[in-house]
């Protein structure tokens, strides 16, 4: 690269971003794969020395995951059960070395349609915090990722953290990733559920589906159908084709056909809902 910057203060990083085009680099687990076979010749801003971006913080009504938090660090952190789905993603993304280096925020900013963190973050109603030379702003993750590898991050901005509003303490979450093998694989289908029980019924359920459209999407029709239903063996019966069709835009690609994806979404959604019920009983 012509220029390699590794500032230790956030204001220096933002000044640099504001004055020239820089590629932001943290763990590099998407950066290097996109550049195999060619020299690394971009100007790079390495954010791994920014202390302000480290750590997972309890901020009262929400949790804050700094942009420097790796998947391994997330998996090892003591967090309530609403993070179980995100932790499951942390253990199945890439392999151990990738988990040690890659960051939750980097996965989000790369915004692959198969981004492993996105379904859980959508189901948690997470928000993205951005900082630029002109100030700070916050967006819902749902609004932040706009398409295949497209986000609302402006070139002069850094994502500093992901904020997750705290749900009720007994909120549970689960995640399922379908791939051609268990590790080192890009998802064919992914589903996340965050479920809040209330007196033996579904108080609220939030579900998101990934790898079946340009961007992962919430399954709001299914969420509405699940709300208030009894937490029993019949929970999976709430699922209807109509709940999924609106958000499904699967493609034929090297990993799977669109038809296979459609079939798997039905199977896995039912399985995930059943798993959520079984875990709560």
């Amino acid at each position, binding site marked *: *690269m*012509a*220029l*390699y910057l*590794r500032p230790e203060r956030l204001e220096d990083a933002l000044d640099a971003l504001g004055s020239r085009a820089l590629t932001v680099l943290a*763990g*590099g*687990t998407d950066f*290097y*794969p996109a550049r*195999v*076979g060619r*020299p*690394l*010749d971009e100007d*790079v801003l*390495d954010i*791994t020395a920014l202390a302000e971006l480290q750590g997972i913080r309890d901020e009262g009504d929400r949790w804050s995951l700094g942009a420097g938090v790796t998947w391994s660090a997330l998996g090892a952190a003591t967090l309530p059960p609403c993070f179980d789905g995100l932790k499951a993603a942390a*253990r199945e993304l*890439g*392999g*151990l*070395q*990738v*988990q*040690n*280096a890659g960051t939750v925020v980097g996965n989000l900013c790369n915004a692959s349609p198969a981004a492993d963190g996105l379904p859980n973050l959508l189901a948690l109603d997470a928000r993205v915090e951005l900082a630029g030379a002109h100030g700070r702003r916050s967006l819902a993750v749902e609004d932040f990722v706009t398409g295949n590898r497209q986000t609302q991050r402006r070139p002069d901005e850094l994502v500093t953290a992901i904020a997750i509003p705290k749900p009720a303490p007994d909120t549970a979450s689960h995640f399922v990733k379908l791939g051609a093998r*268990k*590790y*080192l694989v890009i998802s064919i289908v992914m589903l996340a559920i965050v479920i809040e029980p209330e007196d033996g019924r579904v108080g609220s359920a939030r579900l998101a589906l990934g790898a079946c459209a340009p961007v992962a999407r919430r399954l709001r029709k299914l969420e509405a159908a699940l709300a208030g239903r009894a937490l029993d063996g019949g929970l999976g019966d709430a699922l209807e084709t109509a709940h999924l069709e609106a958000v499904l835009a699967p493609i034929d690609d090297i990993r799977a056909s669109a038809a296979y994806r459609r079939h798997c979404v039905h199977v896995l959604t039912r399985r995930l809902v059943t798993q959520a019920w079984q875990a709560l009983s």
Partner: protein
Amino acid sequence: MAETKTIALAINGRGREVAVPANATLLETLRELGYFEVKSGCEKGDCGACAVLVDGEAIDSCLTLTWTVAEQAITTVAGLGEGAAKHPMIEAFETSGAVQCGYCTPGLIIAAQSMLKDTPEPSEDDIRLGLSGNLCRCTGYTKVFDAVREAAAVLRGGESQA
């Protein structure tokens, strides 16, 4: 043209000053310095053949800029073991039939050693997660897992089961 500077690298207990460009990966630097036991596989974090220990933790050297690991202890598979004594993990791989073509072996040993540092008495799931970042096309992994179990027992102070 990338900036080059002289940095201090500590590899297998040996300190050295090396002129390294900003855009050099640790994989490139190690092989240029003659550490050929660090293999180049996919160069994108999908195979683990290039794995080395940095301060005891397994990382893929193809996903690491050399400048970022100056001042840290880098260990390749050749750096395991004390003097002439063969490291128990290497011994276990050799005697368990876990080595066929051998290309994945350095990376597997590094990953296994990193896992054992944190989890000296690993379950089957711990072993599978610990080696999740390493691909082997020859062995089918069964004897690799046997070797890791064997080495774990020896490193905990037990007798070799072989």
